[in-house]
């Protein structure tokens, strides 16, 4: 039996008196893809930030590749960074505006994978190619790229550190439909080719369905439903999951049913 590459156990995060994440646990198998679904205030983004080390959990543990992650020392940060990387929603904001794309990709590589300048340059070219960007794009500044190109570049930069797990926080939410499809197919390809695992945080159930195998549904900081993504979407057990599903516009959209779902969820 394989062991999970990522395991979160009873994560709790409190901000003052407010509990943003409340007893959240999940496992992610190597090469797997886990969706964390929820709306704003569900705690899904805080969970992702805990995984990435941007927040320290109030209690609970994260185990990455068999090793428990603790503390926020520079050493701990570096170790975590080599195994887990994160892609943010806003691909523009996640680059230093003054650095060329190639330099931005090479910089973390120098920290995590020692090598000569020449080796790094070759690796950058390889990565750009892998995510479907030309070397000319590598010379450009972030502002000269389109949203889709920037997100590709962010993926290339993350891959340069050879992580086992990629946390994608609403990574395609800001993109146009046609570009979103390009990034989704790219992510699909990368997972098949490299065996990397994804934690995909999102609100769009259609996208989550496409990109994940298993999913947890979060509401008010708690996991309300979990299971195979197809099962969760086909046969939702929790009324909140049903509300989420019925809220998605479709040709036979029934707003009455949405209202009914909502009453079932919060009788008042």
């Amino acid at each position: 039996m394989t062991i999970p590459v990522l395991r979160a156990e009873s994560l709790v995060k409190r901000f003052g008196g407010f509990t943003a994440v409340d007893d959240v646990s999940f496992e992610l198998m190597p090469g797997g893809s886990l969706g964390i679904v929820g709306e704003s205030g569900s705690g899904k983004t805080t969970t992702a930030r805990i995984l990435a080390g941007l927040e320290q959990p109030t209690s609970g543990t994260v185990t990455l590749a068999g090793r428990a992650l603790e503390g926020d020392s520079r050493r701990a940060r570096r170790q975590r960074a080599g195994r887990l990387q994160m892609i943010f929603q806003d691909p523009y904001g996640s680059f230093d505006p003054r650095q060329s794309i190639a330099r931005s990709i090479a910089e973390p590589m120098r920290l995590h994978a020692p090598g000569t300048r020449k080796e790094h340059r070759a690796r950058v070219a390889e990565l750009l190619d892998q995510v479907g960007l030309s070397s000319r794009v590598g010379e450009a500044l972030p502002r000269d790229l389109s949203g889709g190109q920037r997100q590709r570049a962010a993926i290339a930069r993350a891959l340069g550190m050879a992580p086992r797990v990629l946390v994608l926080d609403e990574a395609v939410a800001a993109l146009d439909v046609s570009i979103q499809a390009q990034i989704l197919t790219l992510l699909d390809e990368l997972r098949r080719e490299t065996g990397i695992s994804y934690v995909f945080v999102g609100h769009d159930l259609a996208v989550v369905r496409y990109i994940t195998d298993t999913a947890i549904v979060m509401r008010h900081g708690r996991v309300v439903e979990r299971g195979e993504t197809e099962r969760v979407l086909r046969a939702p057990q929790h009324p909140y999951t049903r509300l989420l599903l019925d809220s998605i516009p479709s040709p036979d959209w029934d707003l009455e049913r949405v209202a009914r779902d909502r009453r079932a969820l919060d009788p008042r």
Partner: protein
Amino acid sequence: MLAKTTEAATHRDALGITGLSLAIGTGADTVPLLAGVTVRVGRGETVGLVGESGSGKSLTARSALGMLPRGARTTGTVTAGGVDVLGAGRRELRDLRRTRVSMIFQDPRASINPVRRVGDYLTEGLRARGVSAHAAGEKALDLLGQVGIRDPLGALRRFPHEFSGGMLQRVMIAGALSTEPELLLADEPTTALDVTTQAEVVGLLKDMQRAHGTGMLFVTHDLDLAAAICDRVYVMYAGRIVEEAAGSALFGAPAHPYTRALLEASPSVHGDRAVIKAIRGRPLALAESPPGCSFRDRCPLADDACAGAVPAHRRHGASTAACLRPEQVTP
């Protein structure tokens, strides 16, 4: 102005945009933004305007209020609520915005003055029309009740930051409908909201629209949403309308390759898990698009004939599409 209004009264539409082209800059610096856009919204009708970034959908909606970029030069006509918008003076435009056409925006927080109470916001437009303070207050109270705000009396005294995004968008809708407009322009009104809130707000918009007989132009990037709530949908690409279809027909029988490509690129929660097909390249603005059909660089059906001229709109089934061969899109 009076003559103009009576002349247009025979026109039954809430909004009529005909052959609108728009460019900014002069000489070599001219940047075209819209070309030959024709959009019609009947009284009480819901019409979708769908497109990706740079398609010109927001610009088209704004033109209905005469809100054009600085230095814009236009050809074509825009008639909103019986007023010739492009020919109208400043006073007429102000009058139009105040009484006959309202707009709601994507981010309610950005479009409401944060230091004024919700009550002031709602009564402002009415007071400007000469409604008494008392009557305006009554009306605002009534509207807040209609849009489903609990404790409307208390809400009048609260500030925008005391509301959630969804609740604030309800307030905006109440404000937009306070003047009983003929036309409501909704520019991505639910994009910033959660899915469940979106469903509520859309339901509310539809109810209010039915109750008041308002025509609505619903601008969105979400094809599913447009198809779900609109009587008719216009699909825009690179500053042009490329397809006009009944909302219900959009999914079953797309007539333009771009519409079909968008559908194939969107994953779905319904039906079997299907592969998505990405469209190569990125959405273009009018100024960057190639001569002939703007979509031809990204189109699987394109050939040399598509480069010749911008394809005219032709009927295909229940739709019209600006494509030389719509029959190959949906046989």
